[in-house]
Every structure is written in C-alpha cells, then in structure tokens.
C-alpha cells in the first residue's frame, strides 16, 4: 500500500471511530468536530501532507494542553479531559502519517478513540455499531497485514480481503464472543470505581452516593410490575413505591438503618407500620419484583404485605428480604384508599450528620427566615429547591469533596438524589429531623389501567421530615415537578414505543447490567437443564444418542476424506464443464474395469480412454486439453465453451458405447 492508501484508510477508520461521539456527552463538540475534519481530510485528500518542524510540533503540543484545560470537564469525571486529549493527539498523529510505520503508530490512538466511544454508549443501537465495527476492524487488520507482506514490492488488489470473507469471519467472531462475554468474571474490583459488596436498592446500591453518576434513570429495564388483583384501575397515588429511608449519613453517602434480626410474619402478614389495619376497605395489589435485591417496594399507602419469603423490618418501615432471592419475586400488598399511613419511628439520635458548609448554613437560615412552623419551613426549603435549581443527569463526579455544597452553591443542577440530599442537609441545619427515601416513582400504565410497569428509569428519591401532627414523618419531594418520573397511560401508539422500549430494556437488563447474579443464574439454569436431561432420559437413550452422533461423525469423516482426483475440477463443479466431462470419462473407465488411481491426472485418463476406445480418442483428447486449460489457467481461470464440451462429450460417449 502506498502512503496515500494508508492515509485514506486511517481517515476512514478515524471517522468510523467517531460515529458515536456526537450522541454522547463524553466529549465536547469542538473536539470531535476537529478530529472529524482531520478524518475527512485524510479520506478525501490523502495526498495532502502536513510537514511540521520539531519546534512547531512542540507549539502544537502546548496548544493541545491549553485546549484541554480550556475545555475543562473534570467535573464530569476524568474521562472528558482525557477524551479531549486523546482526540487532539489522534488528530495530529493522523496528519503526520507518511508511511506504514507512522500509520501503525497512529492506528493505536484511533483504536482507543473507538474503544472510548463504544464503551461510553449505553443505547441499544450501539449493538449495530459494534457488529459493523467487528467487520470493519477485521477488514482493516487483514488488509494491513496483507500490505505488510508485500510492502516495497507487489501491490495487493483493491478488492482484498473480499467482503464476504470478512463478514463471515466477523460473524463467527461475534457469535463466539457471546459465550466469552457470558463467562467473563464479573468482579467489582476494590481498586477502581467498585462499590464493594453493597447490595442494591434502586439500580445500583443500598446507599445513595451523592457523588455517583446518576445512570439509574437512563436505564429502561423493567424493575417492578404492579397489578391490581381485582382488575380495577390503579390509583396514580399508589405509584410511588417506597423501599426504605436512608438516615445514616456521612459526608456524601446515605444508607439505611439496620433491620431487625427477627423475621416478621404475624398472622401470615407483615405490618410495616407496626399496627394492624382493617383490610376490608383496602385494595389488594400484586407486585412483581423483577430483580429482588434487598428491599421489597411498597406502594404509597401500603398497610400490609404478604411475602412468600421470610422478611424483616427496619425501623423506618422498610421490608428487608431475609435471604437472597435469585429469581423474580411476586408478593401481595394491601393499600388503603384513604390517607396513607405515616411512619412514626423516632429519628436517629446521637449520630453526627453532615458537617455543613458555612455558606450552606447561611443559605438554610435565609430560606426559612421569618417562618415559625416546621412544616412551613420544610415546605419553603422544598419550594426553594424546586424553583431555583435545575435537573441534570450529567455533571456528577466522584472527585467532589462536598457534593451537597457543590450542588447548592456552585453547580445548581443535579438529579433527584442531590435535591433530596440538599433538602435533608438544609433541614438538618434548621433543626428539623429529615431523611432521604429511596424508591420508584411513576411508571407506564396498561391500556386497562390495571397494570403498571416501573422501570429503572423511574428510580427516585424524596424526603421525609418529622414535622406536623403526631410526631410522624411527612413526605416532601424537592425535585422539580416536571422532572419527577411520571405515570404514563398507555395509548395505541404506545405499544410500538413499548416494543422499542422492550428492546432497550432487554439490552439494559441482559447486557449492560449483566453481572455475577446473572452468571450464577445461568449456571443454575444450565444445571437444571442437565438435571432434567439426566432424569428425563435413561442411560439407554443417552447410549443411542452417542451411537447416532458417533456414526454421523464417522460418515462425515469418510465423506470428507474420500479419495479425490488431483485436479479439483474433476469433482462436479458448475464452473468447469470440461473437467466434469473428463471426470465422467474416468467413471466410464472404472465401470469398464480399469482401475483409476486416486492421483490420476487428466492426461492419464485421456490416454487410457484412447487405448480402450480408439474411436473416442480425438474427442477425449480435446476434452482433456480444455479441462487442463480450465484447471491450470492460474489466477485467470477460463472455462470451456459449454456447447463445445457437450458436443465433444456426445461424440466421445457415442464412441464408448460402440
């Protein structure tokens, strides 16, 4: 390959690597636009070369560092500035390609760009990109290797490697990658970004990490299905499902209090609020938890609950599973039609809460200035947050030291955990006990309205403050109203949307969030299948199965290793009519009692046929000549004239029969 071809190939690969970036927030548009411009330049004008002196390269290096610093983005994690740096370095490296060596050097950053773009995508459409990428990289790698073999000498053909070969190889590779993907160990490392062995409540963990990236709400995986047992429509009020309250606070982490050690099961029912209620007026709902983790989720207004597995209660009314459940879990809840019951458990005493930033303290007192009652103070804080702060799923980082102060004073945007965390902190400053509540909100109602799908995207946190009557906890939701996951009612067109969402949900469920639990489940399923097979089929069945498979294998081997005449064309082939005709002559010889050796040549067959059937000599000779031309014409394989071959064969065959 010439330098021009190398540059064009690199440009194409670079553009392909950049495809997902416009749809992601990982890098800012100026950076990927600049790199794309370089890709286009290399692809369309590969002859254009950039000659840079060492001094100018140094200046460009400084400019790159300055651009990365100016681009910033550390607040969304180190990946953004690193991505900017990578893109700019790749662009410069690609421009400097002049030969194979520099091309190979530039290939690595292009590959890294592709990896970053691919691994930052969560949408199901990335599957298509991934599959096409497999073929693109296979093609590129084969072409690069082919050109490496002949560099400085011959030039390889433009159509190599052939696309059908590449597609076949990529397809087999992708199919092979599925079992590899399934068996790769899913271990959350203690080194990087791991959340250890913390079990999950909503989406990721049983504690809320304010500094975490809120990718929960981006997942459309179905988490809970709520059904009305009576078939009557669900009340939208019930569609706020509570797991538990998070009261144990550190600087940026909120966790639930420990549950009791005694399994809770009185009269076959669990009473989350301690007291027994009359179930006569209550509505019975069935809740299916697709991936049970630690808590059962209770629709708002739940007064009683019946679970098929042992459960325990925590002080705030959270229902904790007594043991690990590997499959989906269905349980029954009874919700009241009247005002929902409020938790009355006492707040945590003697535990230091957040060491609040002085400016945050000032802000808290400013918000509640002139207000006497606690309820009004809590409502003022809630209103302040709803009206003065924006909702955003991006912009979070693990590097932030005090996420609440950062949210309240600087960034002024975040997701529901930031709003809830900030409200708890502000109420804490003014002396009102408050806690964060984790759960789900909203969902998608079925057409009949008796069933609702709650997705991971519906994960939500809100606040309970101990204000109002009877020392009970009152719920507040400081997240802007439009950003609280809503309850949709399904229309006809929604079915299409549901189908698409099902695809996305399956992608999220079985690929993006595939983990150790799913691996265990797979092993368990495989064990069940083996057990079923062993129980269903006796030893005799298995014996015959092995026999049939063995015989099939032997037959296949015998067919595969059948003696073949050296000229491949003697086997039946549409492309070699004359060779096929010579093959027929060979078979005629065998029928006449002449032993045709496995390695017989065309000329041998023709000569032997001439001696036995002198009348067919001329025709057979011509057929042999045509067959040799067909088979030994090298790369430019020529096939004989079919009409002529047929005529010759008719003559030869007639002479053989006489």
């Amino acid at each position, binding site marked *: 390959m010439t330098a021009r071809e190398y540059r064009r190939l690199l440009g194409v690969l670079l553009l392909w690597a950049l495809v997902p970036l416009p749809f992601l927030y990982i890098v800012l548009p100026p950076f990927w636009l600049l790199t794309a411009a370089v890709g286009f330049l290399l692809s369309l004008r590969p002859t254009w070369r950039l000659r840079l002196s060492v001094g100018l390269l140094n200046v460009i290096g400084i400019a790159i560092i300055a651009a990365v610093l100016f681009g910033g983005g550390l607040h969304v994690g180190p990946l953004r500035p690193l991505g900017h740096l990578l893109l700019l370095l790749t662009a410069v490296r690609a421009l400097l390609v002049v030969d194979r060596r520099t091309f190979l050097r530039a290939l690595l950053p292009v590959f890294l760009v592709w990896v970053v773009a691919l691994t930052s995508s969560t949408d199901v459409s990335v599957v298509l990109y991934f599959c096409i990428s497999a073929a693109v990289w296979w093609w590129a790698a084969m072409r690069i290797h082919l050109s490496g073999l002949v560099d400085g000498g*011959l030039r390889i*053909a433009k159509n*190599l490697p052939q696309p059908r070969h590449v597609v076949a190889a990529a397809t087999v*590779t992708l199919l092979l990658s599925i079992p590899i993907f399934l068996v*790769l160990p899913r271990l959350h*490392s203690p080194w990087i970004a791991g959340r250890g062995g913390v079990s999950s409540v909503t989406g990721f963990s049983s504690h809320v990490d304010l500094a975490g990236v809120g990718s929960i709400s981006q997942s459309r995986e179905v988490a809970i299905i709520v059904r009305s047992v009576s078939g009557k429509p669900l009340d939208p009020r019930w569609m706020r499902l509570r797991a538990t309250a998070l009261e144990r606070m550190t600087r940026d982490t909120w966790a639930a209090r420990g549950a009791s050690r005694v399994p809770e099961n009185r009269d076959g029912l669990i009473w989350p609020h301690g007291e027994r209620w009359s179930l006569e007026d209550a509505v019975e709902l069935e809740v299916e938890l697709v991936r049970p983790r630690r808590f059962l989720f209770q629709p708002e207004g739940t007064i009683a609950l019946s679970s098929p597995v042992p459960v325990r209660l925590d002080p705030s009314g959270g229902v904790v599973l007594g043991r690990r459940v590997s499959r989906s879990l269905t349980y029954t809840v009874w919700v009241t039609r009247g005002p929902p019951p409020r938790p009355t458990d006492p707040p945590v005493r003697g535990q230091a809460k957040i060491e609040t930033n002085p400016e945050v303290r000032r802000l808290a007192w400013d918000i509640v200035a002139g207000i006497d009652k606690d309820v009004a103070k809590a409502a003022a804080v809630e209103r302040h947050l709803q009206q003065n702060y924006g909702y955003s799923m991006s912009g979070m980082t693990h590097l932030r030291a005090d996420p609440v102060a950062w949210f309240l004073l600087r960034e002024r945007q975040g997701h529901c955990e930031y709003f809830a965390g900030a409200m708890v902190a502000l109420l804490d400053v003014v002396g009102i006990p408050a806690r964060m509540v984790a759960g789900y909100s909203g969902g998608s109602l079925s057409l009949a309205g008796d069933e609702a799908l709650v997705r991971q995207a519906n994960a939500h946190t809100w606040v309970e403050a101990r204000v109002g009557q009877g020392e009970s906890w009152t719920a507040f939701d400081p997240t802007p109203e439009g950003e609280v996951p809503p309850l949709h009612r399904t229309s006809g067109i929604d079915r299409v949307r549901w189908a698409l969402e099902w695809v996305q949900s399956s992608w999220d469920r079985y690929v993006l969030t595939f983990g150790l639990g799913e691996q265990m489940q797979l092993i368990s399923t495989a064990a069940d299948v083996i057990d079923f097979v062993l129980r269903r089929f006796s030893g005799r069945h298995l014996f015959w199965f092995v026999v049939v498979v063995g015989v099939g294998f032997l037959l296949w081997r015998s067919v595969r290793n059948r003696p073949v005449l050296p000229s491949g064309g003697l086997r039946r082939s549409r492309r070699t009519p004359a060779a096929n005709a010579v093959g027929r002559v060979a078979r005629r010889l065998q029928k006449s009692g002449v032993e045709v050796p496995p390695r017989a040549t065309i000329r041998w067959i023709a000569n032997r046929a001439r001696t036995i059937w002198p009348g067919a000599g001329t025709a057979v000779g011509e057929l042999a000549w045509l067959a040799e031309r067909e088979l030994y014409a090298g790369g430019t394989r020529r096939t004989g004239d079919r009409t002529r071959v047929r005529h010759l064969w008719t003559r030869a065959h007639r002479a053989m029969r006489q």
Partner: protein
Amino acid sequence: MGFAASFPGFRLRLTRWGIAYLVGSLILGLAAVNTGNNALMALLGLALGSYVVSGAWSRQVLGSVEATVTLPSEVFADRSALVDVELANTSGIFPAYGLLVRDGEGRAVIFEELLPTNARHKHTVEVVFPGRGWHTLGPWRLEVILPLGFFLKSKALVWDQQVLVYPRLLANVAQSTRRGGGRRSPDALDLRGREGEVTQLRDFREGDELRALHWKQTARQRRLVVVERQRAIERPVFFVLDPRIEDPSDPQQRDRFERLVSEVATGVVQRLRQGVPVGVVVGPIVVHPVRSIRRAPVALRPLAEVQPQPLTETAPAEIDVARKMFFSLAGGPGR
C-alpha cells in the same frame, strides 16, 4: 491423518503484533473486570473471539494448502532453472490469504495474496543449484500469518521429487578443449579452418566459437550472429572421462575434477548443438553416441552422477573409435 503428516516441520512464532494484541487484551481485561463495564466485557469477548477465529482459520489454511512442484527436464549447475510450483487450497471453507513460500535460504519466492477455496494457482520460481548430482528441492517452507497476524505459522514443504543436476557449463571451454594440457583431441584437425556448407545464421549461444561469428551480420544487427555449417561427414565423437584422481578427499583435486567434468559436459552440449553425434565414456560406463540435443540427458546423466575415484579403481573402458577426447587428472588413458 496425523498432525505430523499434515504439518511437517510445524513452527509457531508469536509476532510483534501478536504480543501487542495480547498485552492490549490483558489491559482490556483488567479494565473490564475492574470497572464491571459490560461494553468493555463485550470488547474483550470480541478480542478473544477474534483470537480464536484467526487461529483456527490460519491453522486450517496451513493444513489445507498443498504445494506440488514440477521440475524442468534439464537443469545445469550454477544456472537458473525455472521450477513450476503449484499451490492448491483443498479446503472448501477457508480461503487462504497471504501465503508466503520461502526457499531454503529464507527468501520469499512465492507470494499468494488470495487462494480461494478449492483453487490452485501455478507459480514459476527461478532456482539455482550450486553443484551437479541428485538434488531435492528445499527445504522450502509455507508461511501463513493472516488473517490477523498474531502468529506466524509455517510448515515444511516436502517434495518427493529429485532432480538430476547436470554439470556446470563453461563459457570458455571451447578454447580449453582445444588447448593441450594432456587433452588429446583427435578431431582437432577437423576443427581447424572453416569447412562444410553454411546451413543457417543464428544467434550466438554460449559455447560457440568466436571464429564462427558472422561479423557483418553482427555489426548490422547489433547482436552476435554466428554461422552454422553442416559438416560433410558427421562421425561420432567420444568424450572419455577418467574419474580417477590421486586423492579424492583433497578439496583442490575435487575442484579440479569438477572443472574437468564441466568441460566434458560443455563439450558434449556444444557438439550436439553442432549436430555432431556424441558418445560418452565415464569410467566403466559407456554411453553410445546420441545424435540430437534432445537426447543430451542420456549423455549427460553419467557426467552428473560421476564421483572422483581413487587411482586404484579401474581405468575407463577402452573403445575403439577414431574420434575420441580423453579427459583425465590422472594422466594418460593407459595409466
């Protein structure tokens, strides 16, 4: 068929690219396991899958590609001979990309960018055999590095054919055969002067006498043109080679012997080209006169196979002909 039969002399070498790929996969694996990012896991799956597919493909290609060689009918030592090598892909599934055949000295002599399934391509390779005698071609190796170049896999190409390489032809033997030095040339007188009818003018060939040059035509056509004459009487000439030397283990004497054999072979070829029947006597072997250049291998074969003998061996067979040329390092014919 066993592995050794399918892959004679199998060699496997990890390439630099393969090492880089392995290290990259390892880093990718660490990143995937650490972060739990399933996209990285999928990438790792793809990387490992590619590794397996590439390995299986190249192995199948190496096993299914066969090479057959067709040697030329006449091969002279120290001269390039054109050898036909046919590569055949017997696999019905795997096309063979990037096949490389290296000769015994490691030079790439054949490059096949794509050999489709069930296809065969013929290549012509220039080969030079340094010495006369029976030779086998090789050891040549078939190398496969594609599709993804992680490993360089190769196997030896086993040729079951042997080629008889005739002695080296000398450019200036015409003069040496006419000179003295113990070589008696009974027909030297016949060669003196120009005689016979002019049959044709033709291009100069190696071994032609300079005095046969047709200078006018040479000047006119700006290439060497010689006059070919038909001798009036074509009596056969016998070349008698005495294979005895004083010390067959002495390299110097062996070199001189080889030179002598080359002189005889050159003389035989020249005479046959001139249309003179030539017989050869090598030790006890007597080859009766051959009359055509096409039959030259009959006369050259004993010259290709002859080995120096000690003086205790018997002298060359006596033949009773008028025209014979005697070649010996051991002295006269009677010794």
